[in-house]
């Protein structure tokens, strides 16, 4: 488990832990930030291990569906869920454009009490993944950490060149 590629993000929020927990676990508050500037419909939010969070983000007549199944619910401290893309019938699907992207990401959110502030630690790693999915996620994470810094620099130079060429 320990050598799987992992995505990590930590952020400090200027609010006490109970409040941050509420913003994550009350669907009326959750939908306000989870789909920024997009109509987000939470079809189901069953906050207990084995319960589902069925999320739809609408854009025109297109929708992006995701299905989260809670694994651990430790009030104010810890949330763990399996995160997947889904079709309109809430069946877990792989990404049509990138079949090797992991179908399921084990998502862990830890809420760390800092008095009137809260540190939120989020991590995602592939679960029940094929070797190809793990390799794909590893390549993407390698790109996030130290660049394809290269990749972005190449793009930048190229755009300058293309524009200059016009």
């Amino acid at each position, binding site marked *: 488990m320990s050598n799987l590629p992992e*995505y990590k*993000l930590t*952020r400090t*929020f*200027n*609010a006490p832990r109970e*409040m*941050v927990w*509420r*913003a994550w676990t009350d669907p009326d*508050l959750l939908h*306000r*930030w*989870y*789909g*920024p500037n*997009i109509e987000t419909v939470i079809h189901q939010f069953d906050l207990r291990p084995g319960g589902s969070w069925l999320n739809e*983000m609408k*854009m025109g007549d*297109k929708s*992006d569906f*995701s299905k989260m199944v809670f694994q651990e619910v430790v009030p104010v401290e810890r949330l763990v869920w399996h995160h997947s*893309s889904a079709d309109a019938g809430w069946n877990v699907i792989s990404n*049509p*454009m*990138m*079949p*090797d992207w992991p179908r399921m990401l084990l998502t862990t959110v830890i809420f760390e009490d800092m008095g009137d502030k809260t540190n*939120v630690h*989020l991590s995602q790693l592939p679960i029940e993944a094929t070797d*190809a999915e793990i*390799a*794909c996620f*590893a*390549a*993407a994470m*390698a*790109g*996030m950490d130290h660049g*394809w810094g*290269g*990749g*972005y*620099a*190449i*793009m930048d*130079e*190229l755009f300058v*060149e*293309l524009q200059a060429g016009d």
Partner: protein
Amino acid sequence: MLAFLYNHNVMEQSSYIKSQPNLDAIFAALADPTRRAILSRLVEGQACVNEIAAPFEMSQPAISRHLKVLERAGLIERNIDEQRRPARLKAENMAVAVDWLEEFKAFWGSRFDQLDDVLFNMKLAHKKETGDE
């Protein structure tokens, strides 16, 4: 992922996607530092194998193998008409991969920005309540 979905739809409509190689192959190709260096070299213009190999401590056959990986991923193309078979960058495919990664990277970050706002409003509401008491 939604902006990505949108891009995907737009590309589908414009049939851009038909000419598009596998993103998995692009990720795998970009994961190697030598291949990224080769791409950087090709930004300066097309080059043939011995020109590309010059700065590396690597044989031309080894460089050729890297070029094949890049070519299969659709990140470069090689002119078959010319004997020297110069390699040229095809940046539009890389743009798709970079977009994908940007989208993934932005997903939680942009949500956390929104969460900041929601928490700010919750605190305001809380202050008002306790102030009234």
